[in-house]
């Protein structure tokens, strides 16, 4: 039954997830070069505006409206029709339907915002607006439906994704890879240093992300009980372990413990624990976190070697971190918390996880590519060369990030 403790919990959790997006804006903004700091921030911040409205209009109903063939929701809840602010969606729901709606809305906002790191420093703002509107509608909403909605085909298959390893992280990370490939590298990529312009901003962003991630993962329990407590604990532990993993790698491979690496490692750990957070205990979360730090570090190096310019390493962190987390969910489910579903063996569960991963990779890559190519050949994706040289803050927005 709907009650104040659980409702309070989900509302605050939703607020925490919302805060992740300005956090992401600053994280990405700090990682960008100074001349693009504002524009990079703007991508994330504007995403809130766009998706926040899209979600209440048609996004929610496409994802969570009545199931159509396991693939997508119907339009019955268009404009939140029939979504109550005080009653639960089902008799045993502990929170009102609109609380669930807005919590899910925050996920829908942050996912496309994550992608923006891949095309930062070169994509036209107008192209971004069109892309984000389309992407959340035809990439995000279906995948959310598959995994989390009653009737979704991956849910039916038994895929485990507590808080968004596939829906949020693989989805955005793979879309980022498609974007990096289709937009092509930034001018000077590989020749000039393109390093973070503001480290305190990066750490601030990482701190806000971490804080918000408690809402993200623990909130996904949809009530303040044991699932939430466990998710909270493993989330924190994996983030800590992610720091250790990534900083350790930088200490070994470049002889110095990296500060940006600490921030990145925390995020990698958080990404990887996301799908697992309702299904594993604290000990596996240490392995998941360290593994995420190590693998994401390696994945970024790999992409640089392949000369693919995923500007702020979205694929490396979210694509690979999310994939590792989704596999690890199968590997560690039930160790320390939760358990395998009745009649499913661990190997079978890992197989199901791989199907969910494969389906998300394929869908995210293919549909993102189609959207981007469509934009490329209509209004165009990239700013002009001289606009890119000057920096997008001035050329696209007419506002410098700093007047110091």
């Amino acid at each position, binding site marked *: 039954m709907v009650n104040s403790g659980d409702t309070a919990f989900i509302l605050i959790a939703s607020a925490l997830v919302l805060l992740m997006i300005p956090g992401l804006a600053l994280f990405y903004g700090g990682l960008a070069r100074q001349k693009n700091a504002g524009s990079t921030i703007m991508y994330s911040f504007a995403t809130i505006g766009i998706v926040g409205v899209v979600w209440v209009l048609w996004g929610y109903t496409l994802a969570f409206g009545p199931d159509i063939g396991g693939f997508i929701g119907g339009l019955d809840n268009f404009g939140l029709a029939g979504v109550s602010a005080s009653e639960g969606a089902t008799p045993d729901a502990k929170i009102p339907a609109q609380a669930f709606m807005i919590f899910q809305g925050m996920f829908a906002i942050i996912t496309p915002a994550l992608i923006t790191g891949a095309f930062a420093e070169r994509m036209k703002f107008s192209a971004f607006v069109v892309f984000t509107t389309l992407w959340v509608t035809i990439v995000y909403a279906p995948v959310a439906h598959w995994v989390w909605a009653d009737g979704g085909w991956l849910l039916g298959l038994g895929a485990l994704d507590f808080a968004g390893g596939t829906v949020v992280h693989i989805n955005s990370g793979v879309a980022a890879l498609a974007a990096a490939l289709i937009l092509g590298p930034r001018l000077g990529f590989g020749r000039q240093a393109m390093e973070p312009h503001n480290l305190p901003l990066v750490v601030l962003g990482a701190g806000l992300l971490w804080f918000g991630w408690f809402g993200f993962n623990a909130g996904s329990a949809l009530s303040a009980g044991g699932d939430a407590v466990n998710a909270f604990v493993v989330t924190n532990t994996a983030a800590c372990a992610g720091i250790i993993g990534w900083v350790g*790698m930088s200490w070994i491979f470049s002889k110095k413990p990296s500060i940006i690496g600490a921030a990145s490692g925390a995020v990698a750990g958080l990404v990887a624990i996301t799908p697992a957070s309702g299904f594993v205990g604290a000990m596996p979360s240490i392995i998941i976190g360290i593994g995420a730090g190590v693998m994401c570090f390696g994945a970024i190096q790999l992409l640089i070697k392949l000369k693919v310019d995923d500007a702020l390493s979205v694929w490396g962190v979210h694509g690979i971190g999310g994939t590792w987390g989704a596999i690890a969910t199968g590997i560690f489910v039930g160790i320390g918390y939760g358990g395998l579903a009745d009649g499913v063996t661990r190997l079978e569960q890992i197989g199901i996880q791989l199907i969910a991963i494969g389906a998300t990779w394929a869908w995210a890559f293919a549909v993102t590519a189609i959207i981007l190519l469509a934009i490329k050949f209509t209004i165009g994706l990239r700013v002009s060369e001289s606009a890119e040289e000057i920096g997008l803050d001035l050329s696209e927005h007419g506002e410098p990030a700093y007047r110091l």
Partner: protein
Amino acid sequence: MKKVEAIIRPEKFNAVKEALVEGGFVGLNTVSVTGRGAQRGIVHQGRSGQSIAIDMLPKTKMELVVGDGDAERVCEIIIEAARTGEIGDGKIFISNVEEVIRVRTGERGETAL
């Protein structure tokens, strides 16, 4: 009068300033520049540990305008305080200044220094 421009390591600025003040040279101005010379090999690390060769290094440029006879002494003081013996210690440039004016009083020439 002469303008002595010295491009030195930023971390040596305090030592140089104190040496100059001791030597009686209080007037100067400085600006942060980035520079490139023979010095190489400074490496930053990128997000995933890749090495980033930094060819433009932060330096401090000091400017002192001094009387013709003082330029040599100033150079000596600077060299002594700024030298580490490693490449990257910097350069000094001396050029001619035709006139100096103190804004407050309108005084001109060496008395305005």
